[in-house]
């Protein structure tokens, strides 16, 4: 951890830590029930009782943001997990063994790469339907090609190195070489692309939920709150401002961490 001691990484860790903390607290405690409607507090502004005011149904915006962060965070986490695990497997196998399997899988990958990830997720959603679980699956599938591509090119670079040769001479099996010898060496690259992937997942999820085909009500989501807030932009601009800013902080945190890792690598 010591080598990552640069400004970007530390700022990133602080911002991300803040968001993660709120997400964890949001799992157990929110000031109000995020779905509880309070007719008296409808459209109320910022006050001591409601830190960020209430929406048009009288739901506490702060509580909903806490739930929204949690949902967005979990969706992005699982999305990246699906993308990374499947992507690493495909990338490792194709990059290490090469041959016709590599050729075929990479052609498929190229074709999939032609779909921007939001579009690919849209296809999967139109096939599977909406909701938190399906959105995660859709985004996860949409993220596989980019991870596969990165891992493949990194492994290709490593395969010709001497240490791989000597591991082979020592009689190590192919999978041992891939996962025990090569993978640790590409970890920094993988780590920073995981963080960038996480950001893309946050943005994609927010975009899909904004369009109304991501997280479905009553589940709170930052993107959905933004689309709900748009009708009240004139009377209560803060309703849009808070969830939007939270998205920016979330993305910024991970981007800075990724930046820090890359910087530490270059030294």
């Amino acid at each position: 951890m010591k080598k990552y001691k640069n400004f970007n990484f530390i700022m990133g860790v602080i911002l991300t830590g803040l968001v993660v903390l709120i997400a964890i607290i949001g799992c157990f405690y929110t000031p109000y029930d995020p779905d509880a409607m309070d007719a008296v507090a409808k459209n109320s502004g910022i006050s001591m009782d409601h830190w960020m005011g209430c929406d048009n149904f009288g739901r506490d915006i702060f509580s909903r943001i806490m739930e929204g962060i949690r949902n967005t965070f979990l969706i992005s986490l699982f999305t990246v997990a699906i993308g990374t695990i499947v992507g690493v497997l495909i990338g490792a196998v194709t990059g290490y063994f090469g041959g016709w399997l590599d050729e075929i899988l990479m052609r498929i990958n190229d074709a999939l790469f032609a779909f921007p990830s939001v579009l690919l997720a849209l296809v999967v959603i139109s096939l599977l339907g909406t909701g938190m679980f399906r959105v995660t699956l859709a985004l996860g599938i949409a993220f596989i090609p980019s991870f596969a591509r990165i891992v493949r090119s990194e492994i290709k670079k490593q395969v010709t190195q001497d240490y791989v040769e000597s591991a082979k001479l020592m009689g190590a099996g192919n999978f041992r070489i891939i996962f025990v010898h090569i993978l640790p060496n590409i970890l920094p690259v993988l780590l920073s692309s995981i963080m960038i992937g996480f950001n893309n997942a946050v943005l994609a999820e927010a975009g899909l939920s904004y369009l109304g085909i991501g997280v479905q009500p009553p589940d709170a989501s930052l993107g959905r709150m933004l689309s709900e807030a748009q009708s009240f932009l004139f009377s209560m601009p803060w309703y849009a401002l808070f969830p939007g800013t939270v998205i920016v902080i979330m993305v910024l945190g991970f981007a800075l961490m990724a930046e820090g890792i890359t910087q530490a690598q270059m030294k």
Partner: protein
Amino acid sequence: MKVKYYCKKFIAMLLTLLAVSFFVFAAFEIIPGDPATSILGTNATKESVQALREEMGLNAPFLSRYFSWVLSCCKGDFGISYSYHIPVREMIADKLPITLTMTVLAMLMTMIVSVLLGVFLAKHTRSVWDKCGYVVNQIAMAIPAFFLGILFTYLFGLILKWFTPGGYISYQKNFVGFLGYLIMPSIAIAIPKCAMSVKLLRSSILTEAGKDYVRTAYSRGNSTSQVLYRHVLKNAMIPVITFWGMALADMSAGSIVVEQVFNIPGLGRILLSSISNRDYPVVEAVIVLIAFLVVITNFLVDLLYRKMDHRMQDGEDLK
């Protein structure tokens, strides 16, 4: 040899297009539900459903249906919409220019602004400008385009009243007014991509500036700006152009979301309403169109790449 390279790239592009269309077709093939039933409604008799299936060619084997679909797509016939019962082409034809104009506007802004800013920041490294630029850049990269759109609507639409939020002028009526309404959405799409490309160009120029040929160019008596514009920029642009190719793809998808923010009736709205109506021919057509746009752009970027980087040899890709 040159012709051979272009042919090879062209064939690879055609294969990718074929694969893309196959994916889309196959994906919509596996969903449960019968198109004939969805057109006729659940009350239709078995005979009429069967007759329509025969007429639509749904009883043919999968591959032959795929190829006839591809052929008719090439002719510009994307089938008939399930929910509106009109040819998909008519639905898309006047919407495509809207999305395309927006994407192209955003792309042009990104290209112009990012080159100017990138060169400026690279020239003034370690200055106050550079540090401010870095912070602004990092934040700009983190803002989703649709949130920027909402901020613009509030600031420029509601407070400054530069444009009517949700307003739109059709391009057939008044092209200048139409462009006026597309400027804000295009800026919203462009800013995050622009920030990324400024950052990339700045670091790419700085990397290039440390190379030997730069020293040679200086020693031959060139001034800093001569070295920068005639030598360094040419090479520094290569990774940036690759990025632009990918950014264009993201922008065309991002415009779907931003269109909703500004209430612009482009491809995005059609795509969304068809997804919720399960109007698959329309979804297929829009997705295939966007994917084709991306593949063709990447092909053009590849060609441009080769023109710019003379180190690239036949059949060898520098990655």
